[in-house]
């Protein structure tokens, strides 16, 4: 048998050798050390070189760096929440796009009663979707991808049944000018006329969620549940609750993302948030969180989000068309994840 032969060969090595480190490649080393920020630095250096060569202009300016962060801030908000689902070993929450659309449209509809009722209603709707996912996936172990896809479809159906393909506008629904203005400023408010609110949400979420994931009891339980569900169950962790909570967190950040997107587009419609599911998965996985669960960090996911921003920015400055950008993004995605998975494997840290 092939397997035993390899094993015997490995055992013939001198006992002091750690066989796991023999295949250490340079890329693996870099990934192991600096994580995804090595790749981010690579992109940054590439941008600087291109600017030095005169191929692109205005790359390394404060304004451009702010633009990069601003452009991916909403993706960041959604991705750091969904990262909890990935971390718990449940791939991704595909119901995020319509969660964003539903919470946005509900908020717009409720603006007629004032700003705070609108936000409360949106959060309640997001929470409801999160809880539905939590029960189905946490308790009954429904397949996460298929279940959340189905929830996505049901929610889309609800939006289109209730609002019958209508788009609703916050400034027309709101009774008071104040409510409409505040809703508008969910996205548009700028600190010092520079730093947008979405960036602030993203940074606060990263700090908060990173704390939850790394420092709290829930975070530790989530890690062991994601890495080895059975072991976690046997060691007395309430697995159902832990997994459920990760879906609730995801739905709540999606709610914030939905409110921001709706405020940006100034229209409540069923297509708000379309595409955010796959974009978020891309950011999470590029950020070094493996689909096997229990590995990676929120800081890494932020790195993944920033890489997507840098990549888009450089390609746009180079004059690459939107659709060619898609093509390149898809290929880079597979390559980065492939290298990451390979380096983890050679380090003996991943059996996938």
């Amino acid at each position, binding site marked *: *048998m092939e397997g035993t032969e390899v094993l015997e060969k490995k055992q013939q090595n001198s006992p002091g050798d750690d066989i796991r480190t023999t295949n250490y490649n340079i890329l693996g080393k870099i990934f192991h050390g600096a994580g995804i920020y090595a790749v981010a630095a690579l992109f940054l250096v590439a941008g600087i070189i291109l600017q030095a060569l005169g191929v692109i202009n205005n790359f390394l300016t404060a304004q451009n760096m702010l633009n990069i962060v601003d452009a991916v801030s909403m993706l960041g908000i959604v991705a750091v929440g969904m990262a909890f689902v990935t971390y718990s070993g449940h*791939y*991704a929450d595909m119901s995020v796009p319509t969660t964003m659309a539903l919470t946005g449209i509900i908020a717009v509809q409720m603006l007629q009663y004032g700003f705070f009722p609108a936000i409360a209603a949106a959060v309640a709707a997001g929470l409801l979707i999160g809880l539905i996912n939590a029960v*189905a996936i946490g*308790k*009954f*172990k*429904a*397949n996460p*991808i*298929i*279940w959340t*896809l*189905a*929830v*996505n*479809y*049901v*929610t*889309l*159906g*609800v939006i*289109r*049944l209730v609002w*019958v*393909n209508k788009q609703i506008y916050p400034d027309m629904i709101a009774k008071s000018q104040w409510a409409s203005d505040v809703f508008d400023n969910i996205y548009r408010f700028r600190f010092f006329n520079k730093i947008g609110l979405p960036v602030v949400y993203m940074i606060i979420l990263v700090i908060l969620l990173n704390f939850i994931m790394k420092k709290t009891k829930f975070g530790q339980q989530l890690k062991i549940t994601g890495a080895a569900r059975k072991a976690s169950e046997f060691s007395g962790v309430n697995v159902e609750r832990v997994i459920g909570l990760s879906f609730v967190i995801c739905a709540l950040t999606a709610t914030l993302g939905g409110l921001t997107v709706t405020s940006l587009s100034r229209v409540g419609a069923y297509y708000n948030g379309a595409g955010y599911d*796959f974009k978020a*998965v*891309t950011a999470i*996985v590029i950020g070094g969180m493996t*689909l096997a669960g229990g590995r990676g960090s929120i800081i890494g996911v932020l790195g993944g989000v920033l890489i997507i921003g840098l990549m888009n920015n450089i390609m746009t400055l180079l004059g690459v*068309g*939107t*659709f*060619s*950008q*898609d*093509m*390149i*993004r*898809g*290929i880079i*995605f*597979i390559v980065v*994840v*492939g290298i990451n*998975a*390979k380096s983890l*494997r050679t380090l003996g840290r991943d059996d*996938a």
Partner: protein
Amino acid sequence: MLNKPNSKKSLLVAIDRNRIFILFTIVFLFMALFAPRFFNVFNLTTIMRTSAMNATVAIGFTVILIIGQLDLSIGTIITFTAIIGLGLKEYIGFGGSIPVAIIAGGLIGLINGLLVAKAKINSFIVTLGMMTALQGAIYTFTGGNSVSLSTPDAFAVSDWLALMIFPLVTPRVIITLVLIAASAIFMKRTRIGRNFYMVGGNRQTAWLAGIDTDKYTIAAFIMSGVTAGIGGVLFAMESAAATLNMGNSSLMYVISAAIIGGTAMSGGKGGIFKTFVAILMLDVLYNGIILFGLGNEVKIFIAGIILASVVLYEAYVSYKHEKVIGQRPELMKELEVQNQA
């Protein structure tokens, strides 16, 4: 088995195993009885024709699920191959462009398969990246315009494909049915076909039994690419046009059908014929909803509810099953007796 299977339980198992046929019958009878203008030859032919594309695509997708992987790129493969099939017709005719398109589908599947089996990247990631890349490629190559043919010979082919030879049957439906029958028999009755189930059911065991699991994984992805290609090209030829989002809705449709038809996401379970019946059921349902005068939104809502209930039902069954795993009923009975005493 020590305890005899009681007849009530085995009946329930039989119902569960054939639930898609029961579901199809119920939906069909309901529509036949209540939906206006449903039960006539032309409408039923329309249903067969609309189901043809997704039914073809679902063959490969079911094999992918059986082997325990996922292919998110089928939607874009449909569009990609359809555009190649129609776009190259001008230069090399249908005789050349169709094989090229189908081979292109197969090549995409091969790349997917190699990345999954040899580079060991999760299929969810590989096919997601492939989906993004192909989407970009489609728009880049076409410049954002849909491809349509308006030459007489293209229309002749298009008319021939939609010609009703028998009630319910057009040439395209025949091609689809032959493909389904052949691949269903292949999967259920040949050793190679059964091996796909074994790889999906337990990869380790399959490998120990001497099956080259990588080869089967790659083969499954190639099959998925080829059937998506055939589905896309034939649909484009019948409508003599390929739009840039024609495959977008197929992914959700085919996943729903495969799951409702009883194919498990975890692999090793399911069948091509059952997926086909599920596709027919969905099409009957959608057709009926439109005939009732209800809009697209009702269709989306009901499709979501059906998929959600099936997923929840399956999850609930295995949840119940897991609760009693390892319990021995005869010991439980003894315990009950002791408690009473």
